[in-house]
């Protein structure tokens, strides 16, 4: 999984490419932790993410709790189905 980070003051964008699974989810967690402390708004771009598992979802919820503002965007229909299964799409800002 490739993680691409773009930090712009208090906002940042993280793009994920590949599989966000049990093995790679901690990498996402690590990438978020490494963001500058002033970043309070994060956008997660899943345009190139093919797969997400419950570990990935857990990570996303954790990020959501951490950030003042958290947007998940470009979710493919396949991934959206999984979000819907867990119901967390209702609580996340999905675009």
């Amino acid at each position: 999984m490739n993680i691409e980070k773009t930090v712009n003051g208090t906002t940042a964008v993280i793009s994920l490419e590949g599989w966000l699974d049990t093995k790679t989810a901690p990498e996402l967690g690590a990438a978020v932790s490494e963001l500058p402390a002033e970043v309070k708004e994060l956008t997660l771009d899943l345009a190139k993410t093919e797969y997400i598992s419950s570990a990935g979802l857990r990570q996303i919820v954790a990020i959501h709790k951490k950030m003042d503002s958290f947007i998940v965007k470009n979710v493919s229909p396949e991934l959206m189905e999984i979000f819907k299964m867990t119901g967390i799409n209702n609580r996340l800002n999905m675009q």
Partner: protein
Amino acid sequence: MKKDINAKDQEKSQELTPSAAEASAEAVKKGKQRKRSVLAFVVAAFVISTVVTLISCWSVSMAGKMHEIRSDSSDKAKTVANIVNDIYSSGLLLAPPPTDEPTERYYPPLSEKRKAMLQALCDSFDFKYLYLLSLDEQKSNITYLFVVSSDPAMNVTLEKERPYGTVVHMDSIPESMISAAHGKINNTFWEDDNDFGKTYGWAYPLVMDDENPDECLVIAAEFDVDQLNGEVINRALLMSIPFIVILIVNLLILLFIIRRKILKPIKTISTKMNSFADGGDLSDERLNMTKNDEIGEIANSFDKMSDDIKEYIDNINDLTTYRVQTNTQMEIAERIQYGIVPERTEISEKGLSACAIEKPAKLVGGDFYDCFMRDDTHFCMVMGDVSGKGITAALFMVMVKTAIREKLVSGMGPADILNIVNDEICATNPEGLFATVFVAELDTMTGLLRYANAGHTAPVIISGKAEYYRPDPGITVGLFEDAGIVEGSMLLKPGEGIVLYTDGVTEAVNPDDVFYGEDRLLCALEGSSGAAQAVNALKDSIMEFYGEREQFDDLTILSAFYTSSEETLTLKPELEEMERITRLLRSEAGGCRNLMQIILACEEIFANIVNYSEATMSVFCCRRLEDDVLCVEMLDDGIAFDPVSAEIPKKEFEDYDTGGMGISLVKQITSSVSYKRVGTFNVLRMTFDLSGK
């Protein structure tokens, strides 16, 4: 069966036919012999009686004749004596003596005329010879005065041999001749056997001088013995004719009586006996003779015997019918058994090759096996041996087998099945029958073998080499309630197999009374790589071991191999292995719309195994059961955890970061998900609908 019996009967009758023919031929022969023996008896009686009659008649007539001669001879002699006397006293004989020797009396030779007269006399009186002699007792000489014969030829001889005055010296002079010389009549005969033939002689005094009555000439007559005998025989024959006629009549009467009183009843009895022997109508074989003699006794005995035999035959018929029925029943039982336990079964499925044979030693044996696919991925096998043989064992076997199968089909575990079946049998087992049973279930996806043993022989595991696998032997089914049979499990690797068998295998005995034994069994199975190969190798080895000896125990073998499959992965409990799972799923369900979700479900489970189960290994297998159904089984040897029924606490969204979504995702993605703990293994099974929901 009916056909068989008829065939046997035919054979039997064919066997009987020649001997029956022989018997009847013998009977005919015997009949002739019997007739001949009666005839011989009659002829012998006739001959003996005739001979006896003839002898007695001959002796009677001989005695009669002699008496007759004796009584006649006085008269004849007197007549002859008088005639001779007349001849000599008539003066015709008064001629001078031929010698100078003075004699007081002189008896000149007879003239030819007189001689002829005397010859005629001789003939008419049946004398052979008639002669006159004077006797000189001191010199023991006799002097013939004349000798005449009834035979003219003999007279010529006599002229020469015994002319007038011939003196003959005699060693002994017959008593009657001496008496006659002294003027006494002695009625005894003497016997002469000389050149003149065989004769009886008789003497009579011829008184010539009244003053000296005791100095007499002797007139002698001789009778021809042969002629006499001829006469006697003729007379005897004549006399015996009426006797013989009476004898023949007697014999005929006797023969008639014998025929009527003895032969005919005997013939009736023998005819009845023959018809009895030929298997004729037995309903009318009584003689019912009312005779009150020995034959009647025999007839009564025969009647009693025929009644008894009829009863025996009826009994035998009943028994035969019963036996035929029993045989038919046995055959039906055998057919049913063959239907229930086929001679050979071969099953080949994904991940499985199985083969089983049953070779019963007798009509109906106590061994049984059962093997079948319970569902798409589970192979069930049962191997059992019921105590005893025959119908009872077969019924019991059917009962046990059916009970086990029914529970196997319902998906019950092997140990539960055996415990329940044991309790069921114990509750209704008046005959005290029991069975050893081994029940196993092979998961053809993971190679997981679940088994339970109820006292059956230990199975053999083949993994290149063959080895005994000795689980808890358990307790024989049917003996005790609450048998407490436990389940065991083992994981077969691809290419490994199990062999089940009955004690008919290890206890096979060769002609030298050696048991087949466990070592030969392992040897025969060594190196087998498939079920059919293993079963055939073992069977051939045993049949070869039996040699010429008859198989005396059932031979039942069942083998199941977990065959290698590309759909199966053996995994280390590491997350990196997820890549292999993903690859496999892609190849099995590539192109499916929900492939990602399937991978997700599998990952959730595998992540659990890796993170929480402390497993040392895991097996992953996926298989398409139908076109749009994918089945996944995941096995691990970690701590028991049932994710399906585990209660997941309802979490708030904020708590989702601590987990809790995985299982719920799995449940949503799968069509079905089930968990079971088998021995030391967790087995999770999921199915997915590939048509996409």
